[in-house]
C-alpha cells in the first residue's frame, strides 16, 4: 500500500536517523568515560542531599547507595562514606573522563530532542498516536529507555558512566526499527482507531522501555556480583568478567535501582493490560481471548510478579531474582519480535508484509 508520502514523513525519518547518529556519539563518549575514568564516579556534578550529617553513620550499614570506590579486595561496606567530592589529586585523566561523561550526557539530551521531534512529526504525518506498528513502537520504547535513564540519573547520579550500556540496546533497537521493522507512515485501520489503544500502547511502550533499562542494570548487577564474589576470595584471580565489574557501582545499588524501575513499570504494565482488555472488548467482543500477543503479555506480567515475589523471598533474593528479571525482559523481546513476526494473531499490527 502506498504510505502517506510527503515531506512530513520524510522529515520524521531524517530526524530519526539523526537521533541514532547522536546517540551513537554519546555512547562512544560514555564508553570512553567508563574506560578511562578511574571509577566513573561523578559526585561532583550533582550535589548530594543538603548538609548531610554523618557523624555517626554506622560503618556496618549496608552500602545501599554507596559506590564501591575501594580497591579490589576491600569490603564493599567501606563505600558508605564515599560521598565526598572526587579526589582532586588523582590526576587529569580523571577530570578528562568526567568532562567526557558530562558532554556525553549533554549529547544524549540533544539526541533525545531529535528523537522526540521525529516521533512528534510522525504523529502529525499520520494524524494519530504514532506507535501503531513495530517501527513506531520500537522507536517509542527506545525513547522511553533513554528518558528512564535520564530520570534515574536525577536520583542516582553515580550511574552516569553506565550510559553506554543503556544507549547500546536503544541504538540496536532503533537500528532494527529503521531497517528490518520499518514501515511507512500510514493511517490506522478501523479496529485501531481507539483512544484505549492510544493509552494501551503508550503505557506498554513506557513500561517496556523502562523495563529494558532495568534489564541492563540487572546484567550489570550480575557482573558486579561476580566481581564482588571473586574479590572476596583471597588469591582468586580476576577473570575478564570480574575485571569488567571493577568500575561498576556496588551490586546492592544496581539491584535496588533495577528493582525501583520494575516497581515503577509493573503498575503501568498492569494498567496497560487493562486498557488493552477494554479495547479488545470494544473491538473484538471479548476482553481476553488468549491471542498469542495477549498470552505473552500475560506471561510477561506473571514473570515480573514473580520477580517482585522473588525479591521478597529468602533464598531467591539477589542473583536468582536477577535472572527472573532477565527472563521477564526475554519474554518482552519474544513478544515483540517473535510473536509479531512469526506467530500471527489478531494483533498482527506489525506493518510488515
Amino acid at each position, binding site marked *: 500500500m502506498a504510505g502517506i508520502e510527503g515531506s512530513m514523513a520524510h522529515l520524521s525519518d531524517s530526524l530519526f536517523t539523526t537521533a541514532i547518529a547522536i546517540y551513537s556519539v554519546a555512547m562512544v563518549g560514555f564508553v570512553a568515560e567508563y574506560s578511562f575514568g578511574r571509577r566513573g564516579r561523578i559526585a561532583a556534578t550533582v550535589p548530594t542531599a543538603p548538609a548531610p*550529617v*554523618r557523624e*555517626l553513620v554506622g560503618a556496618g550499614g549496608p552500602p545501599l547507595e554507596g559506590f564501591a570506590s575501594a580497591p579490589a579486595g576491600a569490603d564493599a561496606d567501606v563505600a558508605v562514606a564515599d560521598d565526598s567530592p572526587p579526589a582532586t589529586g588523582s590526576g587529569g585523566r580523571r577530570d578528562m573522563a568526567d568532562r567526557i561523561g558530562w558532554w556525553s550526557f549533554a549529547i544524549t539530551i540533544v539526541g533525545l530532542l531529535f528523537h522526540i521531534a521525529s516521533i512528534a512529526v510522525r504523529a502529525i504525518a499520520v494524524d494519530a498516536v504514532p506507535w501503531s506498528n513495530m517501527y513506531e513502537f520500537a522507536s517509542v520504547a527506545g525513547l522511553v529507555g533513554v528518558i528512564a535513564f535520564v530520570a534515574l540519573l536525577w536520583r542516582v547520579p553515580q550511574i552516569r558512566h553506565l550510559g553506554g550500556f543503556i544507549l547500546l540496546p536503544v541504538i540496536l533497537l532503533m537500528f532494527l526499527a529503521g531497517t528490518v521493522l520499518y514501515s511507512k507512515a500510514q493511517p490506522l485501520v*478501523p479496529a485501531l482507531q481507539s483512544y484505549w489503544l492510544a493509552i494501551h500502547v503508550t503505557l506498554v511502550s513506557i513500561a517496556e522501555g523502562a523495563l529494558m533499562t532495568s534489564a541492563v542494570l540487572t546484567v550489570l548487577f550480575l557482573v558486579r556480583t561476580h566481581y564482588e564474589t571473586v574479590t572476596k576470595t583471597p588469591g582468586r584471580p580476576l577473570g575478564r568478567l570480574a575485571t569488567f565489574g571493577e568500575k561498576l557501582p556496588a551490586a546492592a545499588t544496581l539491584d535496588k535501582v533495577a528493582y525501583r524501575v520494575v516497581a515503577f513499570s509493573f503498575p503501568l504494565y498492569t494498567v496497560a493490560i*487493562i486498557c488493552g482488555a477494554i479495547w479488545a472488548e470494544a473491538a473484538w467482543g471479548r476482553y481476553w481471548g488468549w491471542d498469542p500477543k495477549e498470552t505473552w503479555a500475560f506471561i510477561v506480567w506473571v514473570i515480573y510478579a*514473580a520477580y517482585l515475589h*522473588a525479591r521478597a523471598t529468602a533464598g531467591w533474593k539477589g542473583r536468582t531474582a536477577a535472572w527472573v528479571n532477565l527472563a521477564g525482559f526475554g519474554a518482552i523481546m519474544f513478544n515483540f519480535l517473535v510473536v509479531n513476526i512469526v506467530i500471527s494473531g489478531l494483533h498482527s499490527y506489525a506493518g510488515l508484509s
Partner: protein
Amino acid sequence: MSASGRLPGVLSPGWRVVRRGWRTLTSMRTALILLFLLAVAAVPGSILPQRPLNSDKTTSYIASHGAWGRLLDHLGMFDVFGSAWFAAIYLLLFVSLIGCLIPRIRLHARASVRKPLPAPRNLDRLPESATFEAGDDPQHYATSARATLGRRWRVVQREEPDGVLTLSAEKGYSRETGNLIFHIALLVSLVLIAVGRLYSYQGSRIVIQGADQGFCNTVSAYDSWRPGRFAAEGKVSPAPFCIDQLSSFTATYTSSGEPTQFAADVLFRPTLDAPAVSKRITVNHPLRLEGDRVYLIGHGFAPQITVHMPDGTTRTDTTAFLPQVASTLLSEGAFKEASVPGAKQDIGISGFFAPTPADTGDGVITSVSPQVNHPILGIFVYQGDLNYNGLPQNVYSLDTSKMSQLGAANLEIGQTAKFAHGVSVTFDGWVPFASIQVSHDPTQGYLLWSALAMVLGLLCSLGIRRRRVWLRITPSREGGQPSHTVVAVGGLARSDSGNFRTEFEALLTRLRRAATPNKPLVGAGRE
C-alpha cells in the same frame, strides 16, 4: 499458627502431613513456583494452534504431524487454557493465595492497632543513625520532634530511667493494606473471570443488507454459537432482543485504499414488543444492550444472480460469499438451487467474487482491492443432485459428488452465461453483508472494578514506604547541672523502595532544626 500451638503432640501423623502440606502450599516459595508454572504453561498456548481460536488450523496441524500431533492433542496442547493441567495450576495458585492471605490479613489487622515498638538499646546499630545536641530539655524537645514528624508518622513516647525519653515512630501501614487489597482483588478477579466464562455465550451470524434478513437472539439464529458451560446446559436464557434489519453497511477508504471506517446501520428492538430503533454500529463501538453487546466484526459481499433452471423455472438468489483474503476481500461461496428431489435437476454454483478484479496473466482472476470497482463473479455451474440428506451442509461450498459440471464463466454485472439444458446464469449485482457477533458476559463490568482495585492496591503496595524511626532523648549533666540534651536518632527501612538514606537525612535535618541550638541550659530551665 495459633491452631498449631494449641495441641502440641496430640496431632495424629495424618493431620501433621496435611498441616505441613498446607504450610508448604501457602508459602511464598510455592506461590513463586506456581507463578512460574503458570507462565510456562501459557507458552504452548501461544505457539501451537488453539482449537477455540482456530479449529481448522488445529485439525490440519494434527493431521500433518502424525503421532506427535495426536500425542499433543491428547495432552490438551491444542486447548491449553481449557486444559485440566492449566486449571490445576490456576486452582493451586488460587488456594495458595487464599491460604497466605488469611493469616496476613489477621496479622495486618493486629499490627494496625499495635503501638510502634520500643526503641532498641543501641540506636547506632541501625542501618541509619546519627546523634546531635539540643538546647531544649527532653520533654520540650520531644514535643517539637513530634510536631516535626507530623501526622504521617504514628508516634509513641516512652520514658526510660534517668529522665530519658524515647519516641518510636512508624509510617507506611497502607503499604501492606495496599498489598492485601491487590491480592484480594486478584482473587476476586479470578472468581469473576471463572463465573463469567460459565455464564457467557457468543453467537455470530451474517446479516445481508436489506429486508427479511434479520434475526432474534436465539441459539438457532446463529451460524456459530459458543456457549459457556452453564449457557450450554440451558441455564442462561439469551436476552430477548432482535436485530431486524441491516439497513445499510458502509465501508470508507482513503484515496490510497486503506480502510478508515466500517459502519453498519441496523434496526433493532431491545425487547420483543418494543418499537424498532435505528442505530449505527462501528468497529470499536458496539451496540450495548441490557446484558448483551452486538458487534460488527466483519463484512463482505453477497452477489445476486438469476438462474434459469433445467426444469424451466427461474430463480433469483442472494448469497453471502466468505472473504478469503482479508486485504482484498476476494471471496468464495456457493449458490444452491434445489429442484424436485431425485430429479437430478438441482443447480449448484460454486464461485468467487472479486471486488476489484485483476487478471494475474494466465487467465486467473484475483482481486487487488477490497473496494468494489467493476466486480467479477466467477462461477462453476453443476447440475445433478445437491445431496441434501438431512444433514446440515456447509453453505459456502458445494458437494459435487452427485453432480456434473456444465461449464464455467467470469461474469461482470449484467452479463449472462448460457449452458446446456437451457441453464443460464445472470450476475445481477451485489449487496454488502455484515458479520454480527452477540456477546454475553455477566461479570465483565464487575471485573473492571476489581481490576481497578488491583491497580490501586498495587500503587500503594509498590509506592508507599514502610519506615521506622526512633529517637532517644537523653538529658546531659555537666557538674551535676542539666546542661543540654543529646538526641540519638536511628532509622530502619522496612521495605526497600526509595532511597532511605536520603530520606533519613532529610528527616534528620528537620529534626535538628526543631531543636534549639545548644546553649548552656543554665537558667533557662530549672534553677
